């Protein structure tokens, strides 16, 4: 093999440290050539190797009676009964979206969808969890509308409905927007596929788009924080083709119905390198490919480029020997190029040839799992105690609480998100029983009574003040949202978005957040089935809020339990499960009214959280609950307002009286956890009381649904607003921020 001269600069420019390079030398017992160096640098990048995070991720609970597949595959898999398996996973596409918002977001959607159908599942829904800097800044508006446009452009065309998500805006995200996408699919339990090569001499088949120079070193880029010179990284932008992805979905699912395939893997980050190395190492085999057979879009591509290209809509398939013809026929039916580029071999070597000439030979496991695992230095930020200090007495009470509420409703973080989800087809497949706009989206499952409820949540502002509690709350809120939809929380996937792990303060945030997630998932019996870590979300040392995003899945045995957050009929009783404490720390209210990001996030008692969720679910299953809406950003007043607005058939009024002697602004806008506002028939009130009592959950009767005004009375505060004025404010928050 040709001996290359690998200079320290070359090593550094590949994002590898001297120690990591020595490790490569030791693994190979020789100097790598340039292609091999590139392969290592991509596979050992933070993005692909999880080298800074894996020792901590290992502490998360991943087992449970319903878990068929935990972390480690393309996606997690749950047994949801009726012989069905639910396949789901969340991925980040933050860095590509910062560079090219439309294509970055679009290819993010394409990538996560591939992760789902490679497991044999038909993708049925996408969720998008978004974070941007303030929309007062033109650059942020450009990123926001580009990202939403890309998700819509790709998701609508590929034919997978986008049914829910989040959108949150705060200054730190100006330094790096977050684009996390989750996809959910349904498979037959006995027809699952795994990305494990097997069967020596089985053909390795390349399917889909031709290879170009797209995204070369995208994987290493996704692991490098931005400096002002980020522009130079631009040529690595990948472009998506949702039409070809649709063909890939149909062709692959058609093939997976037969017995011709052994394994399927998509080519995402680190392209052909990652796909071959992971399939081989998972399967305990080797793979040999000849680049001469790789379909290409551009002339003169080198082995280095071919192995590292991140051209989209490409898959690698291991078929049974003798099935080549049938496989080719199916791809031909769907107008897809397929080429046999190699075969499964004995021993664990990944051998890459170019017209028969060896250009790389590396142990597959060395690439896939050989990266070092770091325990980087950890230290809380010096300012943390200062941040957490909040002197309420220094904060004047609002003169007019109605005006204060309108201010919150206008905030993009609380405002109506319809301008976003209206751009997404959220009805395709006829499953959407509870549409976006409510706490959880509820999707019925074909051929049965069952349904699933889903929500994605993560409050970065809480995590900035206390990453442990913030992450704990993210898990609790996601579960609470699912419960409000009528679902029994089953399991989570997640996306952990942080700054540079090489900074002790950031690493501390990460470790604390992982602790919080583990704690929450253990307490709520919702194991972690997979996820994704995105570090280096910062520009010139300015990092984002630490932002763990939780994707929670819940199950409804009967779709009849599906519940939404909107009040239904005049005369219904409005009640609060849980209790309101004087907690204003890290709240939306402080941010909107005083421009303050400080104080401790609300406390969370997991036993209480469980009890509240149990009570709500029990009441829903007894048919008592007309609507259920948990309290989150904006507190009780906003929660009540959201139950009045955005419902089919126009807004409906409410008239409530709040007890309690705490500061009125905390009473109205504080974000105490473990609270759910429900509405029910008056005649059902006693039954709800019994349930709450049985679970030792505080229950307060607040008032009644009806009328044309939003009326809210407390000991020391009053809100009395006409519905249309309230609705106008709420709808104005995001109006015309997305452009044409």
């Amino acid at each position: 093999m040709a001996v290359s001269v690998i200079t320290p600069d070359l090593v550094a420019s590949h994002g590898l440290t001297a120690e990591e390079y020595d490790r490569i030398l030791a693994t190979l017992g020789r100097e790598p050539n340039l292609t091999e160096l590139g392969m290592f640098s991509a596979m050992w990048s933070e993005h692909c190797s999880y080298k800074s995070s894996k020792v901590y991720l290992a502490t998360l609970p991943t087992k449970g009676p319903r878990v068929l597949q935990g972390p480690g595959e393309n996606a997690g898999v749950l047994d949801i009964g009726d012989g069905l398996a639910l396949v789901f996973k969340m991925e980040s596409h933050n860095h590509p979206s910062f560079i090219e918002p439309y294509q970055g977001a679009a290819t993010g959607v394409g990538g996560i969808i591939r992760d789902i159908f490679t497991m044999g599942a038909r993708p049925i829904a996408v969720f998008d969890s978004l974070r941007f800097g303030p929309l007062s800044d033109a650059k942020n508006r450009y990123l926001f509308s580009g990202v939403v446009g890309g998700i819509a452009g790709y998701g609508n065309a590929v034919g997978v409905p986008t049914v829910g998500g989040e959108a949150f805006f705060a200054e730190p995200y100006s330094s790096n927007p977050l684009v996390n996408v989750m996809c959910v699919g349904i498979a037959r339990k006995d027809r699952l596929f795994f990305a494990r090569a097997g069967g020596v001499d089985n053909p390795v088949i390349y399917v889909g788009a031709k290879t170009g120079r797209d995204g070369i070193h995208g994987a290493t880029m996704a692991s490098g924080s931005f400096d002002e010179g980020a522009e130079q990284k631009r040529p690595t932008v990948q472009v998506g083709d949702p039409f070809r992805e649709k063909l890939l979905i149909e062709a692959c699912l058609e093939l997976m119905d037969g017995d011709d395939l052994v394994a399927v893997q998509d080519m995402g980050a680190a392209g052909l390198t990652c796909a071959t190395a992971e399939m081989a190492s998972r399967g305990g085999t080797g793979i040999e490919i000849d680049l001469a057979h790789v379909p290409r879009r551009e002339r003169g591509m080198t082995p280095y480029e071919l192995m590292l290209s991140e051209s989209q809509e490409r898959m690698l398939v291991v078929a049974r020997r003798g099935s080549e013809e049938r496989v080719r026929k199916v791809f031909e039916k769907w107008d897809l190029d397929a080429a046999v580029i190699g075969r499964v071999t004995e021993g664990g070597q990944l051998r890459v040839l170019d017209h028969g000439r060896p250009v790389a030979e590396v142990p597959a496991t060395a690439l896939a799992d050989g990266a070092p695992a770091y325990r980087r230095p950890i230290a809380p930020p010096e300012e943390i105690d200062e941040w957490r200090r909040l002197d309420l007495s220094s904060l004047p009470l609002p003169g007019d609480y109605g005006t204060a509420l309108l201010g919150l409703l206008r905030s993009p973080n609380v405002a109506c998100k319809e301008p976003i989800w209206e751009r997404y087809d959220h009805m395709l497949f006829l499953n959407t029983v509870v549409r976006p706009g409510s706490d959880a989206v509820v999707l019925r499952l074909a051929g049965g009574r069952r349904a699933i409820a889903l929500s994605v949540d993560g409050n970065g502002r809480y995590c900035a003040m206390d990453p442990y509690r913030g992450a704990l709350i993210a898990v609790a809120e996601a579960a609470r949202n699912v419960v409000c939809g009528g679902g029994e929380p089953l399991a989570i996937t997640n996306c952990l978005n942080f700054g540079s792990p090489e900074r002790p303060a950031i690493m501390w945030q990460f470790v604390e957040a992982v602790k919080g997630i583990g704690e929450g998932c253990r307490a709520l019996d919702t194991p972690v089935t997979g996820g994704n870590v995105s570090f280096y979300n910062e520009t010139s040392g300015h990092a984002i809020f630490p932002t763990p995003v939780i994707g929670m899945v819940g199950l409804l045995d009967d779709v009849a339990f599906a519940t939404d957050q909107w009040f239904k009929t005049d005369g219904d009783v409005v009640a609060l499960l849980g209790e309101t404490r004087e907690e204003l720390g890290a709240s939306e209210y402080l941010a909107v009214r005083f421009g303050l990001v400080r104080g401790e996030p609300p406390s969370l008692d997991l036993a209480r959280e469980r009890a509240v969720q149990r009570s709500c679910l029990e009441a829903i299953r007894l048919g008592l609950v007309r609507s259920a809406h948990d309290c989150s950003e904006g507190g009780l007043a906003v929660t009540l307002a959201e139950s009045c607005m955005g419902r089919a058939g126009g807004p409906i009024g409410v008239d409530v009286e709040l007890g309690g002697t705490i500061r009125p602004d905390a009473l109205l806008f504080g974000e105490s956890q473990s609270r759910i506002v429900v509405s029910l028939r008056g005649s059902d009130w006693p039954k709800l009381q019994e349930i709450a009592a049985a679970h030792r959950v505080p229950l307060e009767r607040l008032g009644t649904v009806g009328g044309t005004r939003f009326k809210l009375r407390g000991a020391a505060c009053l809100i009395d607003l006409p519905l249309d004025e309230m609705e106008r404010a709420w709808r104005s928050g995001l109006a015309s921020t997305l452009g044409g």
Partner: protein
Amino acid sequence: MLTAKIYVTLKPGVLDAQGDTVKSALETLGFKGIEDVRIGKFLVVRLDGDAREQARARVEEMCRRLLANPVIEDYSFEVEEAGG
């Protein structure tokens, strides 16, 4: 009155899924010998005044700031007397 004709094209090497699809569509229609198809935008902007050079500078700036996406697109343009 001046007319600016602006051509916005995908940078070489950037995937043109639309162009590729149109190419194979033309081939199924029986057209042969097509090397490739690239699809871009054609903008016609009509401008007041008749100072060509100033106009060129303005159009250049329009392309840079809004009409073309420098990440994946190139642009070129001509400025002519209206009707031209």
